């Protein structure tokens, strides 16, 4: 077996030092009835070539996004990732190291985290960001738990524009810990509806901009209403490229900003691994979940970085920790940080402008198709269209024409009665030809 360096001679010699006659004897604490006599019923080992062939066959049964016109967004976005990003994250020192428990020999990872935290803080317009969460949806759920700890209240109001998976993941985490969630009716342009639902038990309101229908909202008035009631404002962003163009959550009064960072540096990966962004105001940093990297000096007075404020975390506070999280999304955060470094603020702004422009072209093309209507009033790079027919079968039919048309809203939220709504997205990877092909195929399918 190519990954196992011990030879039979090594094993024999080692057993002698251990003082046992066989490896079997080392398992004698296992109840005899539970010891397997031989291998389980699975195939035997394979060479590299055979494994590659078998898995390549499975890969070939998928239709990659890049294989033709493609318009899915809704929380995961196809962007171009510069080649150098993937090269760097595959370096042994980043790929095969672990959590920087020994800072003297982990300054590479630690400095990256410090830079990542600063980048996220700048993008979200808030003073502090952590070293990342699993993904945007779990970051959203943790933000609600954090707001409940800070306010000592136990209810969260979720807007109807919040990604339905985020709402469900938040409910799942919160309700078992005694925090209730009230999700408002899904609607393309209803973030401000949360204001009417705020009461004295409200720990936080959770709004999303751009929301799952693509609508961009200035949430400043929501922040004001929340704060007047002693509640916090959590702002969710699933498309990180939007930070390049739109007002930041912090600028609009958010107390906690969470988001999905996949768009920067990370492939679609069929949904994961992704990288959760989490930022907050300075006053709340000790209630924050997740790892934090901080600056300090070494014994010779040189600048260095360490994991810090660890007493919030499970390995020290155990059942009183702010979260049970024991990891961050290290390598995905590295990819995010490298790509962001390549972009810089100038590149990110330009990238965001291109995304927005492509989406406007898509809007214009689809609006020309009879019976199709955009229902998103203000959008960044994705929007919702109402169709004269249910969206899911239509999307399936368009696959036959070589088009991956977008995400039927009902797939995310089947009970909402929005079966005729299709969520579409355009990025810098979407060409004019793609848009024209989509509009033509849609027109044919509907006629």
């Amino acid at each position, binding site marked *: 077996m190519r990954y196992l360096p011990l030879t039979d001679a090594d094993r024999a010699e080692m057993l002698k030092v251990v003082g046992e006659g066989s490896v079997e004897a080392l398992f004698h604490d296992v109840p005899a009835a539970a010891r397997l006599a031989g291998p389980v019923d699975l195939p035997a080992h394979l060479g590299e070539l055979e494994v590659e062939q078998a898995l390549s066959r499975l890969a070939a049964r998928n239709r990659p996004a890049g294989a033709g016109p493609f318009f899915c967004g809704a929380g995961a976005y196809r962007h171009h990732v510069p080649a150098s990003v993937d090269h760097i994250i595959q370096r042994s020192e980043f790929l095969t190291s672990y959590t920087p428990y020994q800072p003297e020999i982990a300054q590479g990872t630690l400095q990256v985290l410090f830079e990542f935290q600063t980048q996220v803080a700048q993008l979200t317009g808030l003073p502090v960001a952590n070293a990342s969460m699993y993904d945007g949806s779990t970051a959203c759920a943790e933000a609600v738990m954090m707001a409940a700890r800070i306010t000592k209240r136990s209810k969260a109001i979720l807007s109807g524009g919040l990604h339905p998976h985020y709402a469900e993941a938040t409910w799942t985490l919160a309700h078992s810990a005694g925090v209730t969630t009230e999700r408002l009716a899904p609607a393309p342009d209803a973030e401000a509806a949360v204001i009417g639902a705020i009461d004295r038990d409200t720990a936080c309101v959770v709004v999303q901009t751009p929301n799952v229908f693509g609508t961009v909202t200035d949430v400043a008035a929501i922040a004001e209403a929340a704060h007047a009631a002693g509640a916090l404002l959590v702002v969710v962003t699933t498309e990180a490229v939007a930070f390049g163009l739109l007002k930041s959550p912090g600028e609009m009064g958010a107390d906690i900003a969470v988001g999905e960072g996949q768009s920067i540096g990370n492939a679609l990966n069929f949904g994961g691994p992704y990288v959760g962004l989490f930022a907050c105001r300075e006053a709340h940093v*000790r209630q924050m979940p997740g790892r934090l990297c901080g600056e300090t000096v070494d014994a010779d007075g040189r600048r260095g970085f360490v994991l*810090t404020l*660890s*007493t919030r975390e499970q390995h*020290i*506070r155990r059942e*009183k920790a702010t979260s049970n999280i024991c990891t961050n999304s290290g390598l995905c955060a590295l990819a995010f940080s490298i790509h962001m470094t390549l972009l810089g603020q100038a590149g990110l702004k330009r990238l965001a402008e291109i995304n927005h422009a492509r989406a406007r072209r898509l809007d214009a093309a689809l609006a020309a198709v009879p019976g199709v209507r955009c229902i998103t009033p203000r959008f960044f790079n994705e929007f919702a269209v109402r169709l004269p027919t249910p969206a899911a079968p239509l999307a399936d039919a368009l696959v036959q024409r070589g088009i991956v048309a977008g995400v039927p809203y009902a797939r995310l939220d089947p009970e909402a009665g929005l079966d005729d709504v299709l969520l579409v997205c355009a990025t810098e990877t979407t060409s004019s030809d793609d848009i024209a092909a989509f509009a033509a195929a849609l027109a044919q399918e509907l006629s």
Partner: protein
Amino acid sequence: MRFSKEHEWVEVSGEVAAVGVTAYAAGQLGDVVFVELPELGKTVKAGEPLAVVESVKAASDVYAPVSGEVVEVNAGLPDAPETVNASPERDGWMVKLRLANPAEAEGLMDRAAYEQFLSTL
């Protein structure tokens, strides 16, 4: 000054008692990096958590050695947690409690008894 087995000290002055952690406890904690103090007006019973002291690798509850209402906290500590190490039994005081039951403090150890107790650890 009176001492608890949980290494808190209490010094009664009239109906108010100052509370902190002992020099022994401060030594065991290592460098204190953060002190979390209760809100004014909070009432605690003896033995309940009153404050939290944190070092880099530990977070420890400070228990109320006596029952009472929090009437003052050492506002300088959050910005200068090192005071707990430098002067644990004087400048590093944490909370002043208005005693619910002044007799409670009498039930705690005096210094000699506390030092005797430490020698058994």
